């Protein structure tokens, strides 16, 4: 059991609750019809059109979260612009950050 400032965390209790939840789900599932067959009933239905094969249905990684990235396009453009891949720029960031930190420490020291 792990004590945190606001309470505690015990994975075993969590697991117990999880098992109970699974049991409840199983019980609810048991109310389902037992004569369910599968086969024809599980096929996707596209308004009567031919269903494309499995390969075409699989969503590629490049398309996942497309909307998210589209919404944050401006933000991503800025980040991409600064990750130039040129080693000189990487060192320039280091030198710049050191300079900024130096100024910050000076100001804090004066105050």
């Amino acid at each position: 059991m792990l004590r945190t400032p606001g309470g505690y965390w015990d994975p075993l209790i969590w697991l117990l609750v999880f098992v109970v939840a699974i049991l409840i789900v199983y019980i609810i599932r048991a109310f389902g019809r037992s004569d369910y067959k599968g086969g024809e009933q599980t096929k996707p239905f596209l308004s009567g059109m031919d269903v494309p094969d499995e390969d075409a249905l699989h969503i590629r990684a490049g398309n996942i979260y497309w909307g998210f990235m589209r919404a944050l396009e401006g933000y991503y453009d800025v980040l991409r612009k600064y990750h130039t891949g040129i080693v000189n720029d990487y060192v320039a960031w280091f030198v710049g950050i050191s300079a900024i930190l130096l100024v910050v420490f000076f100001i804090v020291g004066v105050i």
Partner: protein
Amino acid sequence: MNMSYVLLHAPALLIAIPLFAAFLTPIIDRFSKRVRNIFVLAVLIIEEILMIIFAWDVFTNGIHVYTMGAPNPTSTVPLQSAVPVRIVLEVDGMSAFMGLISTTVSLAAGFYSIAFVRKETGQGKFYTLLLLMLVGMLGMEFTGDMFNLFVFFEILSIASAALVAYRSYYGDAVEGAFKYLIISSIAGSIVLFAIAILYGQYGVLNIAALAKAMKSTTLDMIALVLLISAFAMKCGSVPMHFWIPDSYTVAPASITAMLVVASQASLYALFRICFSLYGNTSYVATSGAILILFGLLSMFIGVTMAIPQKDIKRLMSYHAISQTGYMLLGVGAGLYLLGNPDFSTHGMAAMEGGIFHIFNHALYKGLLFLTAGAIFYKTKTRNLNEIRGLAHSMKFTTIFFLIGAFSIAGLPPFNGFASKLLIYESVYHVNPILSIIAMLVSILTLASFMKVFHSAFMGPPMKDVEKGDVPKSMLFGMMVLTAGIILFSIIPGWVVGHIVHPAAQSLANQSAYIRAVMGD
């Protein structure tokens, strides 16, 4: 050879054994590849066992000091002198904690490498450099003086850069290694410059002696700035993180897992300097705030950059940056509150969370990189658009990946949740915004790993990939880390109480660190 003798010399032995083995490896390699593999694994196992015994002793009995070349290991300050002049190794709870991480991940990486690099040339040199990386990490974590920190830092940088370029028939591997080495050598030079500034003022190099003599002059401040920025760059905090995805992506998978721990050794050096060297100066609150800021930036920018990535290892390296942000946030919050009255409640919990997260991160991020390597081993590509349906053939890898992904996303009941919970609750006390951002980042992490899981493991099977899982040695390497994750998930309270708390305590307790070397 009785136990107390071994424990007395353990700090030196832990560094000396892999160093010796590293140079013995190329000689054994000439006679038999098989014996060489067994030898390297035996050394790594011995290191792990010795480290566990030694760390347990440190956690229960307190700081170990070891003076090299002295007639007696504990005589840190010679009779004729007022300051330590020899090379002193000082192992406190935090050092032992980091040492445990290094040896554990090295063991997993060693097992994994046996099959992973079987078809490459120059394997003798590969294992030599792997052991030298272990030496560099342990040296950085155990050393008690600034100059050896620099020396081991450079050993680590050179060995890792050479390993990043190990598959030099890929052009981008050499490019990543080049960037890594340029960044490392600049950081090394700057660190040496800062050490020279400190030495010029106080005439000592020992961290404890320096901390005792520290007078908070302007030069001390400049040295602190140089050290913070150099080590923050080497641990990969935004906005000096650009080299991390570049070099992590192209390294062999087992080396990427080691690089994660190597970055954490720099993180350790950062914490050691802020807490033990500058612990009673007036810069504590400022540097704490800066670490928190670095942590926030790393968390957020790291995770948002991970989402659009199409290269599996590049995606994971952005997550490495993001998770480093949690550690900086947790320990930075502890540093910010150091000396305040509420340090003992919230500051300590924040530090425990941050430090616990270091171990968790090494375990699950190492595991995830190893699974990414397994995918690369099978499909010969890292592009997520070109792979799918691997769960059909790689059952164990899928399970390992899921455990790692759940753990990094902080889903209960995994260990990532335990450490993140400590961080959320305690940094809420510093500023509620911090916890909110931390939780948001956790959600985005889960989203991004669901993307990897969906595109790599789900869907119809790939046609041109042979059936079956990766070789047994790779599976065993992943299993070592998975076992660690499960163990830490089941008993987080025990781990925090007996391993993490001594580490956080020793980091916060600067006077004990000084007393162990300088006497009363």
